[in-house]
């Protein structure tokens, strides 16, 4: 209960700021619309009410986004191309496949880097460089290149999601595998443990807390990758495609609804990983 009050306060404050910003940003637009319609007798209250309920506002008000979300999530058939559930599932699929590939690649790279020191010096600069290229510039290239090899559909988007998600996993797991202190490593030496044994019995279990932290960042990054990929190739649908469609037609309410849906999806993924982490920790403590 203690965490509810501060959280509610923050949410209410954010919504308040949002309403204020919406009113301020839309007011001029609404005034122009009144002027175009020849209305001059409106009160401030009329202006405020109209500003918060425009069809294509600069910034939609929270209740507009909420009702749009409700309409597109619950009141629309999930098979409809307008449903956010339909598009959310497309994004989720790409994200999960990309995340699986990315985290496997990330862990694999971390294992290699920790086992062979020279690999860190030769590979780490490339791994870092790979993330300095803006993904929005790279995504269309990946789609085009993979298309040459007849790789289409979910795959190119999963690849882009993997491209973004492997990096935090690699960095986090390298740190995790190196987290044992010198004493714990010396202990393994006194047993003449092989490198593989030291890895399995010390480095791997010691990396568990880093594993779940890396997974959380990796999953969020995979979702960003999937959405960016969908913007690149919007005919297949997905939350990114809805963002793009919304911006084509100035449907700001739709953009914000898709945006919040993507945020909720990301939060759910990160939450699920956090839950798995706590479950593992509890099992270790109780077994």
């Amino acid at each position, binding site marked *: 209960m203690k965490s509810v009050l501060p959280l509610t306060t923050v949410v209410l404050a954010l919504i308040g700021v949002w309403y204020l910003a919406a009113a301020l940003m839309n007011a001029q637009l609404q005034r122009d619309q009144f002027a175009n319609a020849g209305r001059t007798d409106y009160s401030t209250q009329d202006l405020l009410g109209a500003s918060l309920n425009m069809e294509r506002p600069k910034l939609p008000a929270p209740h507009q986004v909420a009702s749009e979300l409700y309409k597109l999530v619950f009141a629309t058939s999930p098979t409809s191309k307008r449903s956010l559930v339909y598009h959310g599932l497309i994004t989720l699929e790409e994200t999960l496949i990309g995340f699986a590939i990315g985290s496997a690649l990330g862990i694999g790279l971390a294992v290699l880097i920790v086992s062979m020191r020279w690999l860190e010096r030769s590979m780490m600069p490339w791994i870092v460089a790979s993330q300095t290229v803006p993904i929005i510039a790279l995504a269309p290239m990946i789609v085009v290149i993979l298309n040459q090899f007849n790789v289409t559909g979910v795959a190119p988007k999963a690849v882009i999601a993997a491209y973004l998600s492997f990096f935090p996993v690699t960095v986090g797991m390298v740190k995790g595998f190196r987290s044992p*202190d010198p*004493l*714990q490593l*010396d*202990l*393994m*030496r*006194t*047993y*003449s*443990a092989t490198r593989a*044994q030291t890895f399995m*019995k*010390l480095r791997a*279990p*010691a990396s*568990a807390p880093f594993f779940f932290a890396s997974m959380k960042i990796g999953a969020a990054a995979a979702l960003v990758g999937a959405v960016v990929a969908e913007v690149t190739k919007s005919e297949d649908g997905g939350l990114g495609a809805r963002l793009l469609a919304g911006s084509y037609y100035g449907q700001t309410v739709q953009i914000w609804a898709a945006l919040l849906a993507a945020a909720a999806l990301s939060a759910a993924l990160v939450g699920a990983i956090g839950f798995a982490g706590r479950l593992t920790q509890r099992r*270790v*403590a109780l*077994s």
Partner: protein
Amino acid sequence: MDVAAAARLKPDDRRMPSAADATIEINGLSLRFDTADGPVQALSDVSLRVARGEFVSFIGPSGCGKTTLLRTVADLENPTEGLIRVNGMSPREARAKRAYGYVFQAPALYPWRSVARNIALPLEIMGFGKAEREARVAKGLELVNLSGFGKKYPWQLSGGMQQRASIARALSFDPDLLLMDEPFGALDEIVRDMLNQQLLRLWDVTGKTVLFVTHSIPEAVFLSTHIVVMSPRPGRIYDVIECNFPRDRALDIRETPEFLAIANRVRQGLREGHSYDG
């Protein structure tokens, strides 16, 4: 005859075991660390023999190289010069043959393993079967009075209990040699007394050879058959003092004149070896 007087020997005519029955033989050992501030002479021309079944304590101020000496015997450091034989082998061969158990200053238990599984760790690595592991873990827990605590996790145990678990872990694969680096340094006096008695009993029962690094004079005199007094800069052996109390000694020998005489000699050796003239 006064025990202290009998034990008082010049460093050059120390009573040492012959090379044949020495478990550990160290000859002209030197070790230099190359640090950012220039080379540091951690050990200089150290020679020592330890016979099977002895309990040898190393005492000296910080920086006298006692921990480094122990780590060199364990093949955790490489000597710059000199020779070490452990059971007639080089330290590397001895380590490969799992000739020793090492107890560190901190328990170094793995927090994700229960106490029993921590004790089983070396057994898993050395390929013991499951039944054999369980039997040895039960025996080890009993040896250090931790029966019933096998399922607990390290954080659920007191510091003294953790260190006892780490001793059980070092003994689980039954090495002849036990290397202990200030195992009780972080514990309070009362717990330390108790663990000293338990360690002595354990040494008596198992007949292991023990090398024991300590900061405490009473601890060294109470536990040892030989006390090696070391002095710093460069780390070297200043004196080796024999200490012939019966193997089943009790804590109250610490009040006897013999005990106090040896403790005095250790203290004097530490003071003389610590002079900064020049």
